[in-house]
């Protein structure tokens, strides 16, 4: 039996259809800044391996206004990414029971913020030479 003709709407301009789609793109887009920053750090490492002069040049570049601006943008992107990432984290937790109860979304989000702050503080102390 032949099926009647249907009309299939395309996906052209899909992100214009709803703010939820644009929030999604913004969330995913922030990872480009994070990736860029990682590449910049790798470049620094390579300069370090290449010798003192190269590393000195890489460090000198840090002070330029446009690189400062990029770093600021990367920081803001990282913060936004972290907030949205941890907000979605409870959705990825399988059905588990802690002490006979399922942990609430709020407890999971707060717990992961706690772990993340503790790890960041430990790293900060370690790099500052204050720990261990």
């Amino acid at each position, binding site marked *: 039996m032949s099926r009647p003709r249907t009309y299939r709407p395309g996906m052209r301009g899909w992100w214009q259809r*709803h703010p939820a789609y644009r929030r999604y793109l913004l969330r995913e887009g922030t990872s480009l800044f994070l990736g860029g920053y990682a590449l910049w750090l790798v470049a620094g490492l390579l300069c370090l391996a290449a010798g003192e002069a190269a590393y000195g040049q890489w460090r000198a570049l840090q002070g330029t206004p446009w690189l400062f601006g990029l770093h600021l943008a990367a920081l803001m992107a990282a913060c936004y990414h972290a907030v949205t990432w941890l907000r*979605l984290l409870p959705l990825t937790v399988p059905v588990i029971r802690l002490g006979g109860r399922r942990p609430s979304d709020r407890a999971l989000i707060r717990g992961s913020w706690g772990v993340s702050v503790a790890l960041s503080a430990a790293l900060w102390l370690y790099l500052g030479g204050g720990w261990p």
Partner: protein
Amino acid sequence: MAGERTITLEVQRFHPEADEAPYLQPYTIPFSEGTSVLEGLQHIKDRLDGSLTFRWSCRMAVCGSCGCMIDGEPALACRAFLRDYAPGPVRVAPLDHLPIRRDLVVDQSDFLAKLERARTYLIPADERTPADGAYRQTPEEMADYYDYAQCINCLLCYAACPQYGWDQAFTGPAVLALVQRYDLDSRDAGKDARRAVVNADTGVWGCTLVGYCSEVCPKGVDPARAINQRKPASVADYLLGWLRPSGGEGTP
């Protein structure tokens, strides 16, 4: 009573034998506090234009037939009220991402085929007869899947899923949520039978957590959660598949 309130509905029309592409047709109708969008459409069909085609049945957000895009948002026409769109005009179109059959009627066959393939029904561990008595389940066991069991197959979540819009091979929110509904049920033993659907690239891994599906669901199913809470187990299946000499059924 002084002056009845009226509102204009811009309804998307499409006739497969007459129209090359869909177009909007405006209808101005009277409405009151309690007039739903569905009642607006019924008014048009009964009094203004009998050719307007749309689905409905329960008119109380239970049957899942009347889903459509209302001002760009997937919604049940019987659960949306014209007063919230006044002064209008309000645009009513068929559900996004699905093939249009006629006017507001979309083709659901892809969804129904997927529902069947995913075996979204109770598969008990052993044959039971009524003589064996009722299944027993604690309230906690029921709470694990209860929200996912509220799905009414209205397809609003598919209209809110750009991944499905791009690739109809993606199993999609409601079917994957229903898989999780049965897999989490203590009476069910069909997890292995559904594993291939879940673990495929077109299964849970087709989801990038846009999350809009859970926002539009009229029943609070939260398909985004159902899909993503399954990903850790899917990874475990994949890794175990490497260890098993047979390769395991779960490997994508």
